[in-house]
């Protein structure tokens, strides 16, 4: 009882943990701000954002959307590279006295690696891969079970509530009208990590990651071999998207596993999903069940994938794809991501 009284005295607040990629703020962070904005206006409280790393001031200028109250830059040489132990420790030390109500991250590699460590340090409830926030009297959350074959409405029992949001599901916030305050916090407590990075290879990739891309062009058994995936890469780049693959294609060694879409791969919600030569096993279909628009190209008119397609083309992938590419090249590509 005493505890609850103490907490009410403190100002309620919502916090977003930002991410950065190659000197930019990824789209999913804006989506987190969008969701945080709605929560903050319902609860009538502050919405703050935290970035961790080195030389953060220039990157914080790229935060242009949403009504943030304040942006905190947790600066330390020790935080230059993402580390589960250091990041969760720095965040826990900083946030513990602030008694945050909600902490929001993207359900990215980083977000999902960081969230359990942060949740256990702050003794909060963690809800991963949130698809919807239900703003009733009691706020609840919808998340997938069995890759989305079933949806669960869940409620946390502890505070803070740590949420990771599925990319491409939550709407972007409006452009911010007012400038928010920025405060740089120099971390002066020691941060340790028992884990040492031996090697890190970051490719300047031309494609976004499959789980965050707004457009995904995927290939299955019908692509007949790894050499034909270059056609999908060309198509995906025209649309600013990523290349996905079915389990059959990955198990055949045509694409690495991090491209796999489905229950034992990535469960995604792009605006546009283009399935090329994919028959549509149930474990694949659940992985795309929340895609907004699905186009399927397959020779077999009976293929399962057509049952979930908004547009189905019965035909040869190797005939249809070049036509798509030609028309988009002529008509101008460029995806309207909003």
């Amino acid at each position, binding site marked *: 009882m005493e505890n609850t009284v103490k907490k009410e005295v403190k100002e309620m607040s919502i916090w977003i943990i930002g991410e950065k990629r190659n000197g930019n703020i990824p789209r999913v962070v804006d989506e987190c701000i969008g969701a945080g904005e709605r929560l903050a206006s319902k609860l009538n409280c502050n919405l703050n954002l935290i970035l961790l790393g080195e030389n953060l001031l220039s990157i914080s200028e790229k935060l242009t959307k949403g009504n943030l109250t304040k942006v905190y830059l947790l600066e330390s040489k020790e935080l230059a590279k993402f580390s589960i132990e250091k990041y969760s420790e720095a965040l826990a030390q900083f946030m513990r006295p602030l008694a945050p109500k909600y902490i929001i991250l993207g359900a990215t590699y980083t977000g999902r690696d960081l969230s359990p460590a942060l949740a256990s340090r702050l003794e909060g409830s963690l809800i991963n891969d949130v698809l919807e926030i239900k703003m009733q009297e009691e706020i609840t959350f919808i998340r997938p079970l069995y890759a989305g074959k079933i*949806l669960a409405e869940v409620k946390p029992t502890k505070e803070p509530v740590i949420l990771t949001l599925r990319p491409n599901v939550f709407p972007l916030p409006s452009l911010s009208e007012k400038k928010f305050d920025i405060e740089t916090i120099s971390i002066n407590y020691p941060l340790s990590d028992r884990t040492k990075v031996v090697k890190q290879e970051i490719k300047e*990739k031309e494609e976004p990651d499959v789980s965050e891309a707004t457009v995904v062009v995927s290939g299955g058994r019908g692509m007949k071999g790894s050499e034909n995936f270059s056609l999908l890469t060309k198509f995906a780049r025209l649309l600013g998207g990523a290349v996905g693959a079915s389990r059959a294609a990955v198990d055949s060694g045509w694409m690495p596993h991090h491209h796999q879409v489905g229950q034992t791969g990535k469960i995604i919600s792009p605006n546009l999903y283009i399935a090329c030569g994919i028959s549509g096993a149930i474990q694949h279909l659940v992985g795309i069940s929340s895609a907004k628009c699905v186009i399927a190209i397959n020779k077999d008119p009976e293929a399962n994938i057509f049952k979930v397609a908004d547009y189905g083309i019965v035909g040869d992938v190797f005939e249809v794809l070049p036509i*798509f590419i030609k*028309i988009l090249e002529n008509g101008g590509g460029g995806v309207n991501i909003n």
Partner: protein
Amino acid sequence: MNIYVCVKQVPDTEAHIRLNKQTGKLVEEEVNYIMNPYDEFALEEAVRIKENFPDVKVTVLSVGPPRVEKTLRDALARGADEAFRLWQNYWDALDPWTTAQILSNYIKDKEFDLILCGKKATDDDAGEVGSYLGVLLNIPVATRITKLLLDLENQKIQTTKEIEGGEETVEFPLPAVVTAEKGLNEPRYPSVKGLMKAKRTSIPCISPDFKPEPRVKIINLLHPPSKTQGKIFSQDEPPEKVVKIIVQELREQWKIL
């Protein structure tokens, strides 16, 4: 060296999952249960370490009701030395946090060098238990690993995983927790010898006196809205025309392109 592998029994990924209309709960009888696919990679890696290093013992743990015994027997058949099931009849609706507490309570007093889990289970898709184990046992964690290199002499381990835009290899001291991603190895099928041995091995059930206090509660289960089929263009229609129609609709109606 003592290795613990934590496995979960989950519905077959090819299974359709149905809810009982009255209770809103899963229709369990219709489901074929298997070992969580990611746990198969964890187990395989443990068995490979056992094959490549002397004096390695592989113990498999699973939290769950009696039906879970089948999955534990499967693990024994694939090369684990012993298996324990952790369960109390009054446990219900365990969330990842309480599952991790049950596992860590069991492991903490034992001698352990390495704990392997799958990166997530394909039923609740949480991917949290391995990370919680690291915090609860106060040992390093490496998630979603696709490569593992053991340096027993120096009590060290090196693992590789996918990160945003690339790949990262890290090194850390044992004891530690690692969670397995697809690609770590190619899991084997049980051998006839393994199946015989698994049949003979007893699988004790441990019933700890532990009152779970879940941090997340499921209050409702629902079927997702079912998708209706859109426009299907048959083989007889000229593809140029079809593609033009689709591109135009993507631009004008869907505002995607």
